[in-house]
């Protein structure tokens, strides 16, 4: 009998135990939520740089610029650069550069750099992050650990690693061999010619995006003009010199052949291939990889558009994107021999 009672007590305790756990919860008047929605959050591609600048300049104002210790998120040491000879091989302080600066020798910058004037980093530099009010030029084979931003031109010469993001208020030029994750600028040029500044954006007489849908086609023939939006579950090929006046969505792969034009958005679940000299006037977006040939143009001058891939992205030199390039798996600029 005693055994039976003991068994009952053990069974009841074990059964009820999980329900008793709820007693350890705190209740209130409903004034707190367990999940916080950041209501003031706004998406800003240059957030890293702007946030850093704000913190730095506020801290300098508080400090009065009189000693070398600043409090940002934690205490930091700062060096005000007034002469290029102050740059050493290893810089372990925040740098505030007040003069136009051309660094001749490679150096490692362990802390952020803020430049009020044009700054040029030597080849093979290692830069944690740089924020420039004017031009920022980063030499060949350099590594940006986190981000680089410039209000004006930002150049990444050959074989650089672009960190988490490179952004500019005006223009980014990124050369072959460079690897990147996110790039933002009103004009992004994929070019080995860092002096190139012409704005010869293409003009198409009819840039209308027709919304009437044609479904489940597999191709648009060479030189054909199609005034429809395409939604298809097949792999889709837009032939050479063809023009699609509309958006495209495929749950498979999309191939846009040489010199073809799409006036609308291009969305795919599979791989997107954009061959040499093709043009897309709106966004390009895929859950897979993107291969962009040479001389391709995406977006339009004066507008911001995006090229986004979940997987890898390869872009050929001579291409241009107006707006944003983003890839989760990493992207690479291919040399003049191209991808195709």
């Amino acid at each position: 009998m005693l055994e039976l009672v003991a068994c009952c007590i053990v069974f009841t305790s074990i059964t009820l135990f999980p329900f008793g756990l709820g007693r350890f919860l705190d209740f209130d008047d409903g004034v707190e939520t367990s999940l916080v929605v950041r209501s003031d959050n706004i998406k800003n591609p240059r957030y890293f740089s702007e946030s850093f600048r704000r913190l730095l300049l506020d801290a300098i104002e508080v400090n009065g610029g009189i000693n070398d210790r600043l409090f940002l998120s934690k205490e930091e040491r700062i060096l005000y650069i007034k002469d290029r000879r102050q740059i050493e091989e290893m810089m372990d302080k925040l740098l505030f550069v007040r003069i136009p600066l051309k660094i001749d020798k490679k150096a490692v910058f362990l802390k952020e750099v803020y430049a009020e004037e044009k700054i040029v980093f030597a080849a093979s530099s290692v830069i944690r992050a740089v924020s420039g009010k004017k031009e920022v030029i980063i030499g060949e084979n350099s590594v940006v650990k986190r981000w680089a931003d410039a209000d004006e031109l930002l150049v990444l010469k050959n074989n650089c690693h672009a960190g988490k993001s490179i952004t500019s208020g005006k223009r980014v030029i990124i050369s072959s061999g460079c690897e990147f994750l996110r790039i933002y600028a009103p004009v992004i040029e994929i070019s080995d010619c860092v002096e190139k500044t012409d704005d010869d954006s293409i003009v198409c007489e009819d840039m209308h995006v027709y919304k009437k849908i044609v479904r489940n086609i597999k191709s648009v023939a060479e030189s054909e003009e199609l005034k429809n939006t395409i939604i298809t579950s097949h792999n889709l090929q837009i032939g050479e010199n063809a023009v699609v006046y509309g958006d495209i969505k495929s749950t498979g792969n999309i191939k846009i052949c040489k010199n073809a034009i799409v006036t609308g958005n291009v969305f795919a679940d599979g791989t997107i291939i954009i061959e040499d000299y093709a043009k897309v006037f709106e966004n390009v977006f895929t859950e897979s990889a993107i291969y962009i040939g040479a001389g391709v143009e995406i977006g339009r001058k004066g507008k911001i558009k995006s090229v986004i891939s979940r997987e890898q992205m390869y872009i050929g030199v001579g291409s241009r994107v107006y707006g944003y390039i983003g890839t989760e798996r990493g992207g690479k600029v291919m040399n003049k021999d191209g991808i195709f």
Partner: protein
Amino acid sequence: MEMVVKILQGYFIFSIVLMIIYAIRHFCFSYNRLFAKQRVSYRDIYDSELPMVTVMIPMHNEEAVIRNLFDSLLKCDYDREKLEIIAINDHSDDKTPEILEEYHDRYLFIRPIHRNGDGERGKPAGLNDALKVARGEVIIVFDADYRPSKNLIKKLALAFKDPKVGAIMGRVVPINAKKNMLTVLLNLERSGGYQVDQQARFNMRLLPQYGGTVGGFRKNIMLATGGFDTKILAEDTELTYRIYSMGWNVVYDNSAECYEESPETWEVRGKQIRRWSRGHNNVMFRYFFRFLFSPNVGFAEKVDGTLLLLVYVVPLILGLAQIDCLILFFMGKMEIFAGWWAILFMGIYNTWGNFAPFYEIGSGAFLDGMEKEILALPQLCFSFYFYMWYISLGFFDAVIDIITRRNVKWAKTKRFSNEKRVENA
């Protein structure tokens, strides 16, 4: 007598097979969310040319909360030239009309529609009136007590750059999550429902559901198909199936979050869940075969969509199965599964507690970092039986709706808002 036993045993096997199917489904969703590749979101797109958006706010006696919503919308970062707000005053008899006119005088893009005549009442009818005058190509719907964040409209609107997207759903987050045990449980359910279920269905290209608020749809789809059906309480579920049947998609954005207020009493929650069940089952009756044989829907979408259509029938099936189980036990006829014990145990395991708590809600709470709330997880067993009762009542309501073709009456869920909470948000 033998025939009755056979029927009872057959029903028992059927219900266990059904439970196992749903259990596998929930397991797959949880696994996908925790370990599989996540889809890249449309919110990553930067685009300086966004579509014209009309925000619609159906409301009935909302004087206590409507200013908060307007003030939040006025802070949003969407281009004002491309934004229009239509406030649908549905027979309010408090100060709602005056407040709407006050905002209209100050901001021309806030346009009130006053519905005071003898016409049909309710959210779908109000939305239909607003659709006739809306200028936006994208319609976004909020409830009056919501507080959208600055970039929410932009996040929702960006999805429509994809030409196949017919509707988008954002995430609803309870603001009164710590009020009492019921709100804690609802918070857990929401976490499982959005953080895991909706996101996994989006990842797996299945059937994310448009939820009627904190979401948007293309106006031309609704206009081309005659607007919202005013005979259906679950206009959101109906829209989901209409969109898929026509060859469009619904997508989900887990980051497009917005606070809502959860019911704080079991009575209010019971009424709400009964209304949802009635509306959902109405859609189930109308769309089951239409959806199943639609040429525009893929196989995986059909499987998921059909299981989704049946979710408000399953608790009734399960309730009957438990009664069935007791009868068979006392008749001594439970020797059905000789050799099948593994399946039997799995069935029992999944029968206890709506299966989802152990997979989806637990995973959702983990992903949301709700460590303490997990302690309340076992209590979901009680709410499961509570839901089983009200969902079953809702099912019978829907059956009567179909048989009698009666008009449905739209009812607003009671609000519990207090000043302290609103300030805190």
